[in-house]
């Protein structure tokens, strides 16, 4: 390998550590110190606030629903993409990545155009059937599901490709039904990839802001999620509550990353 001089090595190390501290570590740690400026009072005040509790509950409901949906469709689409042949497969494979690079605001706008009850493509028909999508929970679940859609698929597809289908062939030839093969062979094989995918999707879903802002209407105490509440409280000079909720969200995302980074090497070994 290239023998970098110890001096260059030290310089590079310092530059990298300095950059990461100034850009990420220091700012993120400040939200913790600001939350605990007055001991636990900011957190306890936040937890005593019914609007905060409502927002946290709503965030949990929306995030868990969208993770569940993405888990089911993520596994199904991954299996179809890797194990089956059908026309349009490459197109589908490229299209499932679209949500990763589309602006959350565009996602919100797109859903608004189709599902708003006044002039949307499908909204009026759904409204007649008594289903309100925009400005209510289903719309927020849709928006969150959209932005987190590729995460499970991107984790599962490479693992499915790597483990191959020999064991599935073997199981089928020994008389297992396709459902048994899925449950006993395929799913255990991609177990860890599913865990990462779900954790990443959960982190993304808990923190979605732009798309949810557009479709939710941001009604206090009704369709306001944790991220929307951070924005509103900060702008209305209730900084302690904004810091407290941000702190909770930051802890959740750190936990998600640590889970993934602790689990990941085990699978490679």
């Amino acid at each position: 390998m290239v023998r970098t001089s110890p001096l260059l090595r030290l310089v590079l190390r310092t530059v990298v550590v300095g950059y990461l501290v100034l850009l990420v570590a220091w700012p993120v740690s400040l939200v913790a110190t600001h939350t605990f400026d007055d001991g636990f009072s900011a957190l306890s005040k936040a937890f005593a606030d019914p609007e905060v509790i409502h927002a946290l509950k709503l965030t949990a409901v929306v995030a868990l629903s969208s993770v569940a949906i993405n888990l089911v469709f993520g596994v199904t689409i991954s299996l179809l993409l890797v194990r089956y042949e059908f026309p349009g497969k490459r197109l589908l494979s490229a299209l499932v990545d679209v949500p990763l690079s589309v602006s959350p605001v565009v996602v919100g706008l797109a859903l608004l155009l189709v599902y708003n009850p006044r002039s949307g493509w499908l909204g009026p028909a759904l409204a007649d059937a008594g289903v309100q999508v925009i400005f209510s929970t289903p719309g927020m679940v849709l928006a969150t599901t959209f932005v987190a859609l590729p995460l499970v698929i991107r984790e599962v597809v490479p693992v499915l490709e790597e483990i191959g289908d020999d064991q599935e062939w073997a199981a089928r030839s020994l008389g297992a039904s396709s459902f048994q093969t899925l449950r006993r062979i395929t799913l255990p094989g991609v177990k860890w990839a599913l865990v990462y995918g779900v954790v990443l999707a959960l982190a993304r879903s808990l923190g979605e802001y732009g798309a949810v802002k557009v479709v939710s209407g941001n009604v206090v105490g009704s369709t306001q999620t944790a991220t929307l509440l951070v924005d509103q409280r900060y702008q209305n000079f209730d900084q302690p509550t904004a810091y407290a909720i941000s702190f909770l969200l930051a802890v959740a995302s750190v936990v998600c990353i640590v889970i993934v980074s602790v689990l990941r090497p085990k699978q490679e070994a």
Partner: protein
Amino acid sequence: MSQATSALPREDAGRAVREHRPARSVNALGRGSALALGTSLIWFSLLVLIPLAAVVVQATTGGWSGFWHTLTNPQTLSALKLTVGESLLVTALNVVMGTTIAWVLVRDRFPGAAILDVVIDLPFALPTIVAGLVLLLLYGPRSPLGIDVANARPAVFLALAFVTLPFVVRTTQPVLEELDRDVEEAASSLGASSATTFRRVILPSLVPAIAAGAALSFARAISEYGSLVLLSGNRPFKTEVASVRIIGYIEGDNLAAASVIASVLLVVALVVIVVLDLIQRRVSRRG
């Protein structure tokens, strides 16, 4: 590699044994899997394809002149210019810093490097609104460093640098780990300086990974919204980016104009996906 080559004969053997059956019963669509495909496609269409198509259709309702009129609105034009300009700058920064970070992580393991790994992933997982808030704490009016960029142009650059940090690192790192060190040994034993070895041996094999990371970070930067809300102040002609402009049009109930900008962003996103697909296929063909 050996796996891929050995898989072929085995698959052929399997097919020969089952010759009396309709070919490849596992891989052809059966009734169950066809149902699964149909359901997935309907879901995918309702969630992604139809809504995105609606954006494009809505954008064209005003015809070409309406489209052009919205795009050339001075405030919109300034927002688009700012977005593209800052995204290019941030992408350039990421190409340099991302490659350096990946290099240090792979070649210079030191105590505490594991913590850096978590720090690099933080911008992926941290809610964007929280990202804006934490940057405001260090680089806002109450900055312990005495640096206040809030509501000014550098704030846009800062927020974009934060949210796009992981892309180049995470695409380059695995390639750097797999790099064959014998070739580097050979180069330096033949008298190449370490700078030459880096430029002529290492860099060429990293270029596709860096390009992929750069494309991802450009796409992310151009579409960023959440982290800018609190930090940049969204001042028209000064710090207003394309996404904020779209929100402005939506709140003003001008969905057609919002769709025009949205479809521009959408085209950029699609171009990035195509570029990534091309890079990936070139790399896998080279093996």
